[in-house]
């Protein structure tokens, strides 16, 4: 993981590390990004359950383009709130809705400059961003919103299993996992298990990320903890709640980071510390 993050994630990059919504969040990679002090990142959405709050708290982030940033079970994300409430804000925020985000991301994944949606009308989300433009329907119907393509430098994706070429079986809810991998210039794939190519080819419809998109495969069971990985890990609700309580203050966050990110060398140490 250390080598893959070093090689594939560059300061200033546009990073997708939250494409499964509440599931399959690459916490292990995020913590490695913090330890390697990557900075100036633009994080793209759609929804990040706690990880983006941590990357903001650690000062890695310059800008976020997402539909929701916080802690899904517990509520808002304190680091995110503090960064946005500062004068001037420490992080630039571009608000999306889930559908408009996915529309822009898919446009990038398919090599077109924009996609269109019938949502957004009458909202301040549309008014307060240059990611959206109301345009006429060239065929004479109602106007729609164009959503600018959302490019991604590196997508960090957790899948259940893959072969050495990065062909991956993914299951459970998918969120924007596939569009993130397809949009990205580079893909860092994290899997619970490495399996033989034949195992994957026996079910080619379950290979949702083809290896031709993948630049590194990291085998790291538990990389998504405390988020769930269907078939491998249940969500650790208590960890999300504990984080929420611990990070109410800046000092609380510093202590949490010292203990759970800087205080462990890698994911294996993190899991041992958890008692696993």
């Amino acid at each position, binding site marked *: 993981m250390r080598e893959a993050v070093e090689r594939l994630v560059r300061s200033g990059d546009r990073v997708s590390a939250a494409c499964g919504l509440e599931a399959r969040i690459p916490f292990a990679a995020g913590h490695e990004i913090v330890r390697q002090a990557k900075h100036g990142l633009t994080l793209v959405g759609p929804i990040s359950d706690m990880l983006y709050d941590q990357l903001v708290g650690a000062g890695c982030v310059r800008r976020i383009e997402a539909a929701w940033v916080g802690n899904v079970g517990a509520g808002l994300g304190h680091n995110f709130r503090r960064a946005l409430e500062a004068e001037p804000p420490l992080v630039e925020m571009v608000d999306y809705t889930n559908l408009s985000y996915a529309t822009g991301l898919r446009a990038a994944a398919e090599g077109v400059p924009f996609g269109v949606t019938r949502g957004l009308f009458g909202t301040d989300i549309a008014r307060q961003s240059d990611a959206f433009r109301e345009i006429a329907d060239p065929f004479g119907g109602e106007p729609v919103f164009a959503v600018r393509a959302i490019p991604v430098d590196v997508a960090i994706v957790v899948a259940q299993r893959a072969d050495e070429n990065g062909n991956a079986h993914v299951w*459970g809810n998918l969120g924007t996992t596939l569009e993130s991998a397809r949009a990205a210039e580079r893909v860092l794939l994290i899997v619970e298990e490495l399996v033989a190519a034949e195992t994957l080819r026996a079910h080619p419809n379950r290979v949702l990320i083809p290896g031709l998109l993948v630049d590194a495969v990291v085998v790291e069971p538990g990389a998504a903890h405390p988020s769930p990985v269907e078939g491998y890990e249940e969500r650790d609700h208590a960890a999300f709640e504990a984080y929420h309580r611990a990070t109410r203050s800046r000092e609380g966050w510093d202590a949490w980071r010292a203990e759970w990110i800087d205080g462990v060398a890698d994911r294996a140490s993190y899991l041992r510390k958890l008692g696993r």
Partner: protein
Amino acid sequence: MVAAAARQIRDGEIVFAGMRLPLLGFAVAKATHAPRAIGLFENGLIRELPPRGFVVTMGDGPNQRDATCATTLIDVLGMLQRGRVDVGFLGGAEVDAFGNLNTTRVGKTRLPGSGGGSDIAALSRRCVYVMEHERRRFVERVGYVTSRPRGVVTLITTLGVFTLADGPPRVVSLHHGVTRAQVERETGFALDFAQAEETPAPSEAELRAIAEADPSGFWTR
């Protein structure tokens, strides 16, 4: 509140359930009067069965297992945009007399944002909002329009059931023991009380379904 929310789902309807409390409303409706309702979840899940077991997020194991279909966010939100969703469930920090919701920024406080909420409001045939009834949340005009509803809104609160975005805001029912004065004190916009009734109490079956879906009272304590 959860029982009143669940009752808004008619049997056989296609329901878009947002995060948190709405998830529970769907589970209760499925377990009681609307066994054929189908739930869409913006993370990519479609369910014909209510989740078996306690769920905090829609990505939790019990919401994944026995799902009818597991696909992408844009597939499911595309079905919503296509007009296939009868009723969308939402919550928010602020609501106004026009049915607009704010989940982005209240005063200086930065909140998490829209998620799928804005899309669900804009693209569902009708909406149900579930919220705590407090004056600071019920305002004449929200400070930031995160979500503007396309259709009629039924607002379920800790005090009663209301209709928005269908003419002037009006009271459908007040929960048992709640007074008009109390509601007016906690609401920042005018309400028509002419047809206010009392909210029917939760049935045995509803209470049982709530207890099953939220055994520790995480959502309903």
